[in-house]
């Protein structure tokens, strides 16, 4: 910084000028510019594919801009790699976490720091201290693969906090958190703000942005289309700026409409956790009726994964009649048999569970839909039909992809999510079980997915939604149940239940969410 220069006005912490970045066939960022003041929480808004992630990767030194300048504290800087970014004081919390599953929390934190010090015990203590002082408790000795999504995010945040960042970039941090966890996170962020740290906050959740952020820059198609004060805007007006069109909210059908017969039941399902450190499922009872949407709320890592696997048939129950589909005992049948009976599932993990990353969209459509949609001709694959089906999913759910032959793994998270959910919905399942239907999906696409779920229920299908997004569950569900430490509460009518009630159940009735979480994790 040149002394005496520009003394009147404080320099912005970060200023972007004319940032342009092109990939073969697409301009991800075009002449993007904005400023983030010291101690400001600045929102970066935009749909999937608007270029937000590409932009922040350039700030963090993972990608190099083709043109434009990054100005840090009034000084133009070159950020060739993340080490430089961290040396400047930039921390980043990734949307798809940059973690190493087979390693411990301690090792993960050490890897994300440039100077973690020699003494591992001292670092472990620092992790405990910092994580607790910011209300994000973490056990440094745990291996990452045993942790819930919410806990994994804490690692990323704590890793940044240990390096006393001056700008924290957060890519969709709340998409996996409970209301209480979001509240805690916001406290942490406000505390950081009070300490003078700037925050660049990427999110789709407009209400959160209104609550938290001081300023917002809106990207569409790689360009800055608007800058606004989120406190002065409504969520709806920001959504319209983001998508550049009239925003359509989900049309709910009337409450109290008659539901059909029971399609899916669980009777006293007990199951040991698949992962070490998981929680066992305890005596779960459930009856899902045709035409209704039943929501299951819960903090990540309370047995949702095993519950979905038990319903889908990926994990088999101890006896056949523990799980029934339309009265048929299927507890010992595999996923294909259950799929044949009309039960389709959307797992939480998109890459590797919901889709095969290295296979094309056509092939991924073939994998899950060949039986129900008749893609087999005398035992041979009918690629044409599968391709048409994939194309229909792409069209109906506005999946941004070059075509049906693109590898699933090359789609952005939100787009792949749209494809996977769409693929199951368009098979018109009698029973659909879906985990985190709109995780990482932007507002407009989320509305499309939610509307499709509501419409599917209206045709008489039974739908089970397992989600950590309470707003979503309240929008969609007829009834809501809460899973905590492997036990499922009774389902309550969504119309009468309050967010606070659900929040308390999510944390276990006897204590705070942290206690229950620690217990569930132990």
């Amino acid at each position: 910084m040149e002394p005496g220069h520009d003394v009147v006005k404080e320099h912005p912490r970060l200023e972007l000028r004319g940032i342009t970045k092109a990939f073969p066939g697409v301009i991800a960022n075009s002449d993007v510019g904005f400023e983030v003041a010291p101690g400001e929480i600045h929102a970066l808004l935009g749909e999937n594919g608007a270029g937000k992630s590409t932009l922040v990767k350039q700030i963090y030194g993972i990608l190099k801009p083709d043109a434009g300048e990054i100005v840090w504290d009034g000084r133009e800087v070159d950020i060739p790699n993340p080490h430089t970014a961290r040396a400047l004081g930039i921390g980043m919390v990734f949307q798809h976490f940059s973690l190493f599953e087979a390693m411990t929390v301690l090792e993960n934190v050490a890897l994300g720091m440039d100077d973690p010090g020699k003494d591992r015990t001292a670092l472990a203590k620092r992790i405990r201290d910092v994580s607790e002082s910011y209300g994000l408790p973490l056990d440094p000795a745990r291996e990452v693969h045993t942790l819930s999504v919410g806990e994994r995010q804490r690692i990323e945040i704590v890793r940044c906090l240990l390096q006393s960042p001056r700008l924290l970039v957060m890519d969709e941090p709340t998409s996996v958190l409970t209301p209480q966890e979001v509240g805690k996170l916001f406290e942490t962020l406000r505390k950081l703000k009070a300490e003078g740290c700037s925050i660049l906050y990427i999110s789709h959740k407009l209400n959160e942005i209104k609550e938290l952020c001081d300023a917002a820059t809106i990207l569409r198609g790689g360009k800055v289309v608007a800058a606004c004060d989120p406190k002065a805007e409504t969520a709806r007006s920001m959504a319209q700026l983001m998508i550049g069109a009239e925003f359509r909210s989900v049309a709910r059908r009337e409450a109290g409409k008659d539901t059909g017969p029971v399609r899916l039941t669980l009777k006293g399902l007990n199951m040991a956790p698949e992962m070490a450190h998981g929680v066992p499922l305890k005596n779960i009872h459930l009856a899902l009726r045709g035409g209704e949407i039943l929501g299951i709320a819960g903090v990540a890592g309370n047995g949702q994964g095993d519950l979905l696997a038990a319903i889908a048939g990926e994990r088999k129950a101890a006896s056949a009649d523990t799980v029934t589909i339309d009265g048929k005992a299927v507890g010992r049948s595999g996923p294909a048999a259950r799929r044949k009976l009309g039960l389709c599932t959307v797992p939480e993990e998109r890459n590797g569970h919901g889709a095969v990353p290295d296979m094309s969209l056509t092939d991924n459509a073939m994998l899950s839909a060949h039986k129900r949609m008749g893609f087999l001709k005398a035992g041979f694959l009918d690629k044409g039909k599968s391709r048409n089906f994939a194309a229909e999913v792409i069209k109906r759910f506005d999946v941004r992809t070059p075509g049906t032959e693109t590898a699933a793994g090359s789609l952005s998270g939100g787009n792949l999510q749209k494809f996977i959910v769409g693929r199951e919905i368009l098979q018109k399942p009698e029973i659909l079980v879906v985990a985190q239907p709109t995780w990482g999906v932007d507002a407009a696409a989320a509305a499309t997915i939610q509307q499709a779920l509501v419409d599917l229920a209206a045709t008489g299908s039974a739908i089970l939604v397992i989600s950590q997004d309470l707003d979503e569950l309240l929008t969609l569900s007829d009834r809501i149940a809460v899973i905590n430490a492997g036990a499922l509460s009774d389902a309550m009518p969504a119309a009468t239940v309050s967010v606070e009630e659900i929040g308390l159940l999510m944390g276990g009735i006897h204590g705070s969410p942290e206690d229950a979480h620690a217990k569930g994790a132990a």
Partner: protein
Amino acid sequence: MGLDTILAMLLTVIAAATPLLLAAIGELVSEKAGVLNLGVEGMMLVGAVIAFATTVGTGSPALGILAAMIGGMVMALAFGVLTLTLMANQVATGLALTIFGIGLSSLIGADYIGTPVDKLASLSIPGLSDLPVIGPLIFGHDILVYLSVAITVAVAWFLKKTRAGLILRAVGESDLSAHSIGYDVIRVRYFAVLFGGLTAGLAGAYLSLSYTPMWVEGMTAGRGWIALALVAFASWRPWRVLGGAYIFGGVTILQLYLQGGGDIGIPAQVMNMLPYLATIIVLTVISAGPWRGRLDAPACLGKPFRPAS
């Protein structure tokens, strides 16, 4: 069986285990960084022939060992350029490297067949090496035997205790995460692959300078493949590689002694199969048994690294 027989047996087990240990510990480092190099056999052969030729040419086994390390690393470098820079398939490239190594070593070694060379000198510590039993067993080996154990200790320490080791494991565990935090994945993998070449070269040098001090075409006799199996058998842990190498060395020697002990009604060919049979059984049990956890193998093993845009 007298004490002398047992002692002689133990000494041969150590000799049989050393090349396996050297080759496997380098491959372990390479695989920990996420690179599967199936060219171990080829790198060993090139190491063996170069060590032999250099020793014969210069009269210095030290230079021979040095040349073997360089030879192994040059082979590994070729593998690295193909798989890391040009992103060729690691399995196919590794197989090609082995075939190439067999051919290249035969070519270089053609003039050396039948040439004698002195066996690598054993360490001789006055007093200690003369002790009965303990002396020959612990203080009577050549430098490569001690080096193989020292390298194993060093690798175990490096991977577990040092930051560079942590980064190497991280790169093998999730290349994309390592990249997004700012580590140079390709560079780390080059180092790991080169280290694998270095120890494979040493393993070859041990074979042609100490185990059987001469050059014979294809003298590794599948030891490179056994070393590869050892790494999986050891579930990518250095100490278990050490134990595994000695178990496999023991099986190799056992069959010799069984054959030497008179007619036991089993054809010699079946006995010769023992070490390889053990390899196959171990690999099958490991990949099907309760140990089959994806968390044992480095998650990115064998996958080329393509940074996402």
